C-alpha cells in the first residue's frame, strides 16, 4: 500500500454552543490512499460529515479542530486562507448533500464551472468555456451546450448534482469527497450518480471519500470502510472483510438493520374500508412573471384502489409520482375529483363539518418528525388535540390519562408528556406522531413516508411498532414510501406509481420477485445495491 495522501491523526472537533461545548468527533484516525474508494458510514450525529468538513476547512464559525490533518505532508489545520485555497477545488474537492441549494441561483451553470477553472488554471474565458462543456459531457448531462447557459433552477436535482460533480472534477483533484451526495435524490437517479462517480474514479484515478448512512451503497462500491458512531471510529478496514465478518457489535447491528419480515394478505371476506375510483388531483400553476399561460399539473391522474380491513397497501414511486398527493386526496386534505368512499360513505361531496366525525376513523402519520409536531405545544397536548375535537366530553384529567396510556403504547416514558418536541430525537418524535394518530382508535391509517427521515436502526423499531398496532387493533394501512425494502416488509399489496398513474399493482411478492413493467424493474434494480 502506498503512502496515504490524506491522513487524520487524533482529530477532535467540538462546537461552542450556548449550552457549553458539544463534541462532534473524538480522536479519529483515517487514512486515504491514492485511487481508493473509502466509505465513512454512520448514522446521524456520528460525526462523519464534520470530519471531512474539517479537512476542507469548512467547519462552522463556532467549530474548533485539534489534532492533525495532513495532505501529502502539508498540515491543513491552521493553514492560512491563501494556501488553503490552493488546495481546495484543486487537489481536494467536495460535493454536498443538497444539490438544490448548493449552486448559486443567480449565475449561469457555464460561468460557475468556468469560475473554478479560471481560478486554478489561468485559462482564458473561451478556454474555460470549452473545458466546461467537456466536463458537462463527462458527467453525461443532456444537451450540454444549452445547459452552459442555463440557470440552476432550470435543472432537476439529479442534473444539479452532475453539475456539482463536473465542478469538483474540473481541476483534476487527487481526492473527491462526496458528503451524502445522493440522499436527497430519487433511487433511480441515485444509482446513476453513484455509477458515474465510480466510473470517473476508475477513469481519472482519483481517490473518493464517500460519506453515507446507506450500507447498500457501501457494499457495492467501497474498497475501504470506516464505521463511525457518536464521534468515534468503531471499526475500519477492507470493505469485503467487514461485510463478511463485522467485529464490532455496532457494525453488526448496522448490517442487521435491514427491515425484514413479511406481511400476510388480508382475510378473503374482510370488509372494504376504502374504495377509490379514478381519483384525479390537478394543480394549476400560477401565471408566469411576464404573463405566460398558466399550465396545470396532473399530480394524480386516474388512480383506483381498494383497501380491505387488515390490509396494508404499499404505494411506491419516486418524487413527483403523486403518491403523497394521493394519500392527501384520500384524507381530503387536497382537492380531488373522482370517487372516494370510506366505509361505504362517499367522501368527496362532504362538507368540512360533515367530514369531521369521519376523520376519527381515518388518521395520518407524516414523514417529517421535525415538522409534523407543533413546536410550541407540549407533546401531551399534541397527542390529545384530537380528543378535543372528537371526544369533547373528556375532562383534563381524563385526557391526561389517555395521553399517558398512548405514550405507553408507543413505548415512550409517560413522564415525558410535558416536554416539547425539540427535546426529543427523530425516532421519538415519530412515535409521538404515531401516538397522536392511534389515540383516536382509527380504522385506517395513512402513513406518508413515516420512516424515510430516520436512521435504519430506528426505522426497524418503528416498523415493528406499526405492525404491532395493526395486529392488535385490526388496522388497515396505506403505506406510502420510496424505500422499497421497508415497503416489502410492511405490505401485502404493492402499487407502483409514476407521473400520477399506477404502472403496476399486485401482491408484494409478485411485484418484487417478478416485476412486469419496465419501470418497476428499473426501480427494483436500482434499490438493490450489491
Amino acid at each position: 500500500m502506498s503512502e496515504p495522501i490524506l491522513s487524520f491523526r487524533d482529530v477532535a472537533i467540538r462546537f461552542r454552543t450556548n449550552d457549553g461545548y458539544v463534541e462532534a468527533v473524538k480522536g479519529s484516525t483515517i487514512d486515504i490512499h491514492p485511487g481508493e474508494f473509502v466509505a465513512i458510514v454512520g448514522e446521524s450525529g456520528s460525526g462523519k460529515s464534520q470530519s471531512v468538513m474539517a479537512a476542507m476547512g469548512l467547519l462552522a464559525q463556532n467549530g474548533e479542530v485539534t489534532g492533525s490533518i495532513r495532505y501529502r505532508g502539508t498540515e491543513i489545520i491552521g493553514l492560512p486562507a491563501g494556501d488553503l485555497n490552493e488546495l481546495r477545488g484543486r487537489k481536494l474537492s467536495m460535493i454536498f448533500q443538497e444539490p438544490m441549494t448548493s449552486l448559486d441561483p443567480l449565475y449561469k451553470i457555464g460561468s460557475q464551472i468556468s469560475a473554478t477553472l479560471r481560478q486554478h488554471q489561468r485559462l482564458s474565458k473561451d478556454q474555460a468555456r470549452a473545458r466546461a462543456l467537456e466536463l458537462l459531457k463527462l458527467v453525461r448531462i443532456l444537451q450540454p451546450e444549452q445547459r452552459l447557459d442555463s440557470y440552476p433552477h432550470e435543472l432537476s436535482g439529479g442534473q444539479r448534482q452532475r453539475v456539482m460533480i463536473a465542478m469538483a472534477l474540473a481541476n483534476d483533484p487527487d481526492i473527491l469527497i462526496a458528503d451524502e451526495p445522493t440522499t436527497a435524490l430519487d433511487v433511480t437517479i441515485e444509482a446513476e450518480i453513484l455509477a458515474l462517480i465510480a466510473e470517473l474514479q476508475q477513469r481519472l484515478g482519483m481517490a473518493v471519500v464517500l460519506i453515507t448512512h446507506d450500507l447498500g451503497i457501501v457494499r457495492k462500491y467501497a474498497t475501504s470502510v470506516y464505521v463511525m458512531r457518536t464521534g468515534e471510529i468503531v471499526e475500519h478496514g477492507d470493505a469485503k472483510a467487514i461485510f463478511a465478518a463485522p467485529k464490532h457489535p455496532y457494525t453488526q447491528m448496522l448490517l442487521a438493520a435491514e427491515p425484514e419480515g413479511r406481511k400476510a394478505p388480508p382475510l378473503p371476506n374482510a370488509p372494504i374500508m376504502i374504495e377509490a375510483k379514478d381519483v384525479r388531483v390537478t394543480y394549476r400553476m400560477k401565471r408566469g412573471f411576464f404573463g405566460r399561460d398558466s399550465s396545470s399539473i396532473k399530480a394524480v391522474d386516474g388512480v383506483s384502489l381498494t383497501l380491505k380491513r387488515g390490509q396494508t397497501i404499499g404505494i411506491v414511486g419516486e418524487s413527483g409520482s403523486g403518491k403523497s398527493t394521493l394519500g392527501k386526496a384520500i384524507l381530503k386534505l387536497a382537492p380531488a375529483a373522482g370517487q372516494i368512499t370510506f366505509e361505504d360513505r362517499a367522501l368527496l361531496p362532504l362538507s368540512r363539518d360533515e367530514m369531521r366525525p369521519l376523520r376519527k376513523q381515518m388518521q395520518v402519520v407524516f414523514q417529517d418528525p421535525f415538522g409534523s409536531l407543533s413546536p410550541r405545544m407540549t407533546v401531551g397536548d399534541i397527542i390529545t388535540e384530537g380528543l378535543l375535537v372528537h371526544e369533547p366530553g373528556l375532562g383534563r384529567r381524563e385526557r391526561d390519562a389517555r395521553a399517558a396510556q398512548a405514550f405507553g403504547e408507543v413505548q415512550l416514558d409517560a413522564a415525558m408528556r410535558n416536554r416539547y418536541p425539540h427535546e426529543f430525537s427523530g425516532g421519538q418524535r415519530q412515535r409521538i406522531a404515531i401516538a397522536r394518530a392511534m389515540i383516536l382508535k382509527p380504522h385506517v391509517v395513512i402513513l406518508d413516508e413515516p420512516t424515510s427521515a430516520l436512521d435504519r436502526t430506528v426505522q426497524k423499531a418503528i416498523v415493528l411498532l406499526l405492525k404491532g398496532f395493526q395486529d392488535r387493533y385490526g388496522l388497515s394501512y396505506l403505506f406510502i414510501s420510496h424505500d422499497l425494502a421497508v415497503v416489502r416488509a410492511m405490505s401485502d399489496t404493492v402499487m407502483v406509481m409514476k407521473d400520477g398513474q399506477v404502472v403496476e399493482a399486485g401482491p408484494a411478492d409478485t411485484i418484487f420477485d417478478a416485476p412486469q413493467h419496465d419501470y418497476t424493474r428499473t426501480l427494483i434494480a436500482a434499490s438493490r445495491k450489491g
Partner: protein
Amino acid sequence: MSDVLAQPVPVGRSLWADARIRLFRNKAAVTSLFFLILMGVTAIAGPWFSPHQYERVYTEYVRVPASLTAYPKPEQIAPAVERIAARVRAQIETQQVVGGSVRVTLVSPRAIDERNLAFFGRSDLFQGANVVERADEGRKLVIDAPIRWRTFLFGTDGNGRDLFTRTLIAGRVSLAIGLLATGVALLIGVAYGATAGYLGGRIDTVMMRIVDILYALPFIFFVIMLVVFFGRNFILMFLAVGAIEWLDMARIVRGQTLSIKRQEYVQAAEALGVTSNGILRRHIIPNTLGPVVVYMTLLVPKVILLESFLSFLGLGVQEPMTSWGVLISDGARNIQNAEWLLFFPALFLVTTLFALNFLGDGLRDALDPKDR
C-alpha cells in the same frame, strides 16, 4: 396506570423558556431591559416626587440653564430685590445676603406700606419678608427675606417651567403613545394578517390589495386629516399612528402564516379535524409570535419617533401637556441660546430608543438563534 399518573411529571423546557435563557445571556439586551424599566418607573413616578409641577410657570426663572446648585444664583438676587423695591416704591439703602436670607434696608420719602411687602412672598425667589426693624416713622424698614431655594436640574424653558419635571412628564406621554400605538397595531395587524394568510385565495388577495392601497396613501396627509378633523387629542394621536403601523404588522404576520400553513403540523391538525379557529389559535398565531414580538420592540421606537415628528410639525399633544417630541422641537428652535432645552429631552429620547433597539436585536437573536 394510576401510579404513572401520580408521578410528578417533569415540566418540559418550552421554546419560550429557551429563548428567555438566551436573552438573559445577552448583556446588552438585559442592560437595555433594566434601563427601560427604570425609565418607565421614573417617568411614571418621577413627577410626583419632583418639587415642581410640570405646568408651573416661574416668571422670574425664564430660560435659566441647568444647574446642580440651587437657584437663585447670587447674581440674580440683587436685581430681584431692586424690582420688588421699585414696586414697594422705596429705595434700597443696603442689601446683604446673610445665611439663607437677604437683609434689605428700604428707605422711602413716605411711609412704606407694609402690605406691599407681600411682593416678596409672591416672588419666585423669596419666601416672604419679615420686618426686623422700623425706623423713621416707617420710612425706613429693615427687612429679612428668607430665600426660597429651588433646584432646576435641567434648567427651565421659555415659559419658565422646570425642564426636569417636564421631561419626565413628557416621558409618560411618549412611552404611553409608543406602547399603546404598538398595541393597537399588534391587535389589528395580527388578526388581519393571520386571517388573510390562513384563508388564502381571493379573500387574501382582496385583503392585501386593501393594505397596498392604504400603503400608497401618504401618511403625513392622513394624520394631518385626523388632527384637523378631531383637534389635537392625545388618544387620537396614538390611534392615528397605530392605524398606520398595523399595515406592516399585517404584512409580516401574513407572510409568516403562509409559511406556517405549509408546515406538516398544520396539515396534521386538519387531518385531526380541528376547526379553522382552533388551528389559528393553537398552531398559527403562537408560531408567528416570535417575529411579531421582535417587530414590536422595533416598532415602539418608530412610533415614538413618529410622534416626535408630528410634534415638530406642531401637530402633537396640546399644551401644557408635552411629549419628548414637543420638547425637542422647542429645544431645536432655541439651540443657540438655551442648548439645555434640546440636550436633555434629546438625551432621554435617544437613550430610550437605543435601549429599545438593543432589546429588539437581543430578542431577535434569542428567538431565532443563527449561531448554531
